[in-house]
């Protein structure tokens, strides 16, 4: 697909901005610096791949941006709102409606059916139950699981669970989708299906997606790549710049 279209359609508005973001984990006397000052700007409608080896701070960055964890210092702005300034209740509002989360291990609620999993965030948002059901079914149809809405997570394959998780993340029409290695637990084929859904959400619904990943197929669909190493941004590049360098590796078709 044409990258330039995606970027121009974003109209350059910044949705996420981090300023000198730092995070330290202190366990007993051992201090681990997971992030050592990250400054990143992400625009609306962008599909960003966050790459880096294990332990580089990818997940930490991801959690900071999603308001799932609090930074040691530095700031995260989501649409110019400082996340650190929010109260617990406002943070819940933010997580509920503005951000959708997709995890490596799906994190579905085990005792709820696929549809109930998708409608739970809507229940938290106070959406009318009937409307929530309709919308839930639409979303399940979108990810191709219309027939399996009564199934519980244990009755579904990993790919199906991840698709339910994607439907759930879209429940309250968020502005931002955060994916933490969404394909890492899946085989090649299923992983590709998931990526295809993400690509579709990005291009057809103009979702902003931030995706932490090891998966090189992500190169084909993302707009920009951010490499993180040792808690710092090592490099930021547009896809076309990268594909020229490693064209032979990214040879697989999206």
């Amino acid at each position: 697909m044409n990258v330039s279209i995606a970027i121009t359609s974003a109209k350059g508005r910044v949705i996420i901005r981090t300023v000198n973001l730092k995070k330290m984990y202190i366990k007993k006397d051992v201090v681990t610096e997971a992030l050592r000052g990250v400054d990143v700007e992400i625009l609306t409608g962008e599909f960003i791949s966050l790459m880096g080896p294990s332990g580089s701070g990818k997940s930490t960055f991801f959690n900071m941006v999603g308001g799932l964890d609090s930074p040691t210092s530095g700031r995260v702005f989501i649409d110019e709102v400082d996340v650190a300034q929010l109260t617990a209740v406002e943070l819940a509002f933010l997580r509920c409606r503005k951000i959708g989360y997709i995890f490596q291990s799906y994190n579905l609620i085990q005792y709820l059916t696929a549809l109930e999993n998708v409608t739970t965030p809507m229940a938290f948002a106070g959406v009318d139950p009937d409307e929530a059901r309709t919308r839930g079914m639409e979303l399940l149809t979108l990810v191709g699981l219309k027939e399996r809405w009564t199934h519980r997570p244990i009755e579904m394959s990993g790919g199906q669970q991840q698709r339910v998780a994607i439907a759930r993340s879209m429940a309250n029409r968020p502005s931002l989708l955060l994916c933490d290695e969404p394909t890492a637990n899946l085989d090649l084929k299923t992983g590709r299906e998931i990526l295809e859904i993400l690509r579709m959400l990005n291009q057809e619904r103009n979702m902003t997606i931030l995706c932490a990943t090891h998966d090189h197929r992500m190169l084909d669909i993302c707009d920009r790549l951010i490499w993180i190493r040792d808690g710092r941004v090592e490099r930021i590049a547009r896809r076309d710049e990268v594909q020229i360098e490693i064209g032979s590796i990214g040879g697989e078709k999206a």
Partner: protein
Amino acid sequence: MKKIEIRDQPSLGIGKTVSLTLTGIRYRLFRSLVTVGVVAVAMAFLMNVLSESLVRGAVLRATTLRAAELHQAYVWVTKLSDPGMLDSILPMMAAPHAEAVDEAISMAKLPPEDRGFLESRCRQATGYLRFFAALDYGARRQLTRQAQGTAIFDALQSPSAQADFFAKAKEMRSLRLPGGAEAFQKFLIEWPAVKEKLERIRAARAAAIAQLKATLHGRTVMEALAEADGAFGAAIRAAGFRFPEDIARTVAGQARRACEGQSLEAGLLRPAVRRALAGRLDLTLNEVNPLVLWEFLKDRDSASWYLDRLKEAGIPAADLTPERLMALARVQTEEATLAQLLPLQADVEEGETGVQERMLWLILVSMIVCAVGIANAMLMSVTERFREIATLKCLGALDRTIMGMCVIEATILGVTGGAAGALAGTLLGLSRMSAAFGSIALSTMPIGALCLAMAGSVLVGIALAAVAALYPSFKAARLAPMEAMRVE
């Protein structure tokens, strides 16, 4: 694209929270059942201890009452043959039985206005006597020397002894005279008047007893009491005792039984009867005693056989019927059972539940065991769901929704476990007690108190479960989602 604006998140409705929680419980049914089981076992233990002590208390109160009823004849024998001491009249005057006080006042021909004075002073006096009796030996020795009972008040009449007493009482810091030192001083001043009146009561009783003696005509008091519902009863009333008809009838019946029993037991003193009985029961002569006799007399054939033996020996009791003998045997065995139960009274004190200090301690310990067990179960069920809680928080659940879910779950488990445990514990306690005490345990069962205790322990179960779940859920709800996921 729309701009992000941050508002307050609405909280999830109670109904939705409950249904979400219920779905969770149903999914984790086995885990939940284990938790319910822990709560139930703890509650069963608590309720078992409670119900047993309640039943035991009720049984013993009933037996004490029954024993008192059975022994009325003996009580009257004592009353009609001994005027009593000052120290035994004093508590009688302080007791809440108006009858006895009326009797004493009218017998001693005291003016009726003395009654209030006498009653209140006697109550005071018993209070002081109880206080002195409860002191440890050293303190009592210092305060009262050798004096005991009402003699203490007599000894303190002299001013020097009184001054000495109050000085010493002041030195003992922990000593608290009931009502304070001044009240006691005032009481001591009034004591001679009280004592004089009590002496008059005693003298009047002695006179009445002497008057009755004349009507005995060589019989023992017990034998005479067999006619308590007839001429002798009238004589008792004439002597000034309060002896209502209904009590007279009971006493007469009991006295008759006692006399008949004595004459039947007297048969055992005759070698011929004794030998015959020993032969029939296949016992040695030494083993034949009244208890064996009464056990033997329980069936009709044995009773008529024994009557024949008595007739042969020429004992006057032989004109009794076998039925009468059997009835006597029944009463005798009941008395024997009561006599066995009475020592158990040491376990019971006067408190509402009939629970003694040792029992209270046991209940306290069982409560602690309960609390720890329930807390552990709840802690586990919350901590193992940290990941789920974190996920729910990612989806926009408020802290209070999370806590609400945990507390609702704890409450549901607490209600179920508490009710099941309380029921099981009560049933177990009741069956144990009825095995120990027989039918008397069931007939005297304090149903109201038991229900109250059950309701109480169910509430305790719920409260313990809710409180135990509160802390870990509070912790889980307050953690940032990712920190909660990291705890595992």
